[in-house]
């Protein structure tokens, strides 16, 4: 996991350059999965090996493992063309979420129970001219985080 500068361009780039399978979703619901060439090579290698394994006579537990691996292979193979790898896409993401929930027999409550959100609030402020904004910036790793204390003061 890494934390990127906000703005979809930077997040997308970070997912692309750091990972062979890079998952990103911004809190606002925009995101996708990116697959690198190594992932596709792994799939073709896996296909050959799974076929080979099937032709061998295997013990029950090993063949069970192999069957599960075949399912995993079929699932992973479907993902790259299910998601929109250009940018986040609500329609593709809806199908992705629906199929993951369906495969696990989960409903929204079960999914929600994975962790509990910390309280947070997002506000949008309109300002006359953004040039008036003076922002103290500091960067930490590749993150780009700014505090805006005076804005909070404005709120009160």
């Amino acid at each position, binding site marked *: 996991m890494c934390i990127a500068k906000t703005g979809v361009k930077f997040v997308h780039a970070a997912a692309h350059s750091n990972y062979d399978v890079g998952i990103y979703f911004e809190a606002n619901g925009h995101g996708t999965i990116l697959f690198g060439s190594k992932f596709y090579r792994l799939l073709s290698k896996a296909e050959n090996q799974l076929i080979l394994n099937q032709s061998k006579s295997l013990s029950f537990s090993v063949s069970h493992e192999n069957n599960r691996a075949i399912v995993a292979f079929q699932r992973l193979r479907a993902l790259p063309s299910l998601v929109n790898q250009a940018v986040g896409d609500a329609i593709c993401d809806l199908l992705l979420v629906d199929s993951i929930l*369906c495969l696990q027999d989960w409903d929204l409550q079960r999914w*929600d129970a994975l962790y509990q959100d910390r309280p947070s609030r*997002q506000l949008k402020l309109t300002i006359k001219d953004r040039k008036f904004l003076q922002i103290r910036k500091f960067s930490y790793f590749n993150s780009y985080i700014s505090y805006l204390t005076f804005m909070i003061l404005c709120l009160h």
Partner: protein
Amino acid sequence: MIQIPKTTFKLLHQNASPNQNPGTKISFQYGTAGFRYKHTLLPHVFVKMGILAALRSYSQQGQTVGLMCTASHNLEDDNGIKMADPDGGMLNSDIWEQYAVSLANAISVEDVHLVLQEIISKEFASIPNTNQRFQMKVHFGRDTRSHSAHLISLAIAAADSLNDVTHPTFRQSVQIIDHGIVTTPQLHYFVMHANSHLLPNAIPFHYHIHGYFDAICHSYLSLLNTKTTQGDQSSLQRPKQRIWIVDCACGVGSYQIQTLEKKLNQLTHSLAAQFKVVNAVNDGPLNDKCGAEYVQKQQKPPILYSEGLHQKRIITSNSRLQSELDRFEKISFLKCSLDGDADRIVFHYQTNDSQSSFHLLDGDKIAVLVANFVQKELTHLMKVLDKDEESDLRCGVVQTAYANGASTDYLKVCFISLISISHVMLRISIFVFCEY
């Protein structure tokens, strides 16, 4: 020197910059979302971006670029335009963003001419004066705003006018593909697949709406197909029918969800969910008290503008009735909200226990769900594979500082790949963060 055709000049004259009015001084900026302003300020920007997109395509050796007309989750009155680069991503060049800004802020037609000459001399000086010529290719798309059709037609006309350029090396044709009303991600998808040589995963000839729905529907069904082969215990019972109530923010998503529903119906699959649109185009005001932006920022359910719909009765009826339906009819209703140009989605549900009955599943929850799934499947696959360099796959999640700290903690504990994390978030208990 390349002469700008008369037709181009005419378009520029007809769509003058608002800064030509004395007393008006708007500084146009190209942000992550491209240019986004009140629609009345934008006609001249569309003309200029039409020209710029064609030039961008030429500078990329004739690869396809895209222009999308939308102001995403903003209200109806705003509009915007952004360029998609050949890889389907956002315009990825600071220099070209600067060109766009210079053009948008050029006041008179003469100023525009000067900027264009500068771009041409900088970008095309290096292109050899040979017989090698590139066709410029630009894909266009727009959302459902009432002014989008007119605005995008200006960009199309401007790109088209470059066909009249008479110059020995720059005598090229411009290929224009107008996709009409599409979602923003669809337009990006078309551009990406039109340059199919660029990516390992692109599907050639899928740069249109049918290709898009073919690809995603078939992948969706093949993913669902793995459920029966796995022999889940629950598959002994008949699985519940899932009905998604999709809040489309009164925007373009409603057309595309309806197309999706039609396509899936044709393919008939027992496990496929059904998708019902609420807040379709013209049901109510775009993005106003509905859609992903509203639901996520306000943490409230969307207003349902759609009248007389069967599903409205079901949604608004009390949750008790719904849970009874759940139990007896083996149907589960699931709700989600798209934004105005369908590039974002959040999920939500309501429980009938008093005040805090609204629950939001935002992008962080989606990331965790997807990461969980991908990791589990990869682990199962890796078990039977020989270990070598290929199986050393880098798999991970990227979050922004907006991410809810709880999701970051979850991913840190449960997810394999950790590259770096900002410790700032961990030391401070209340975190104020601002994007500008």
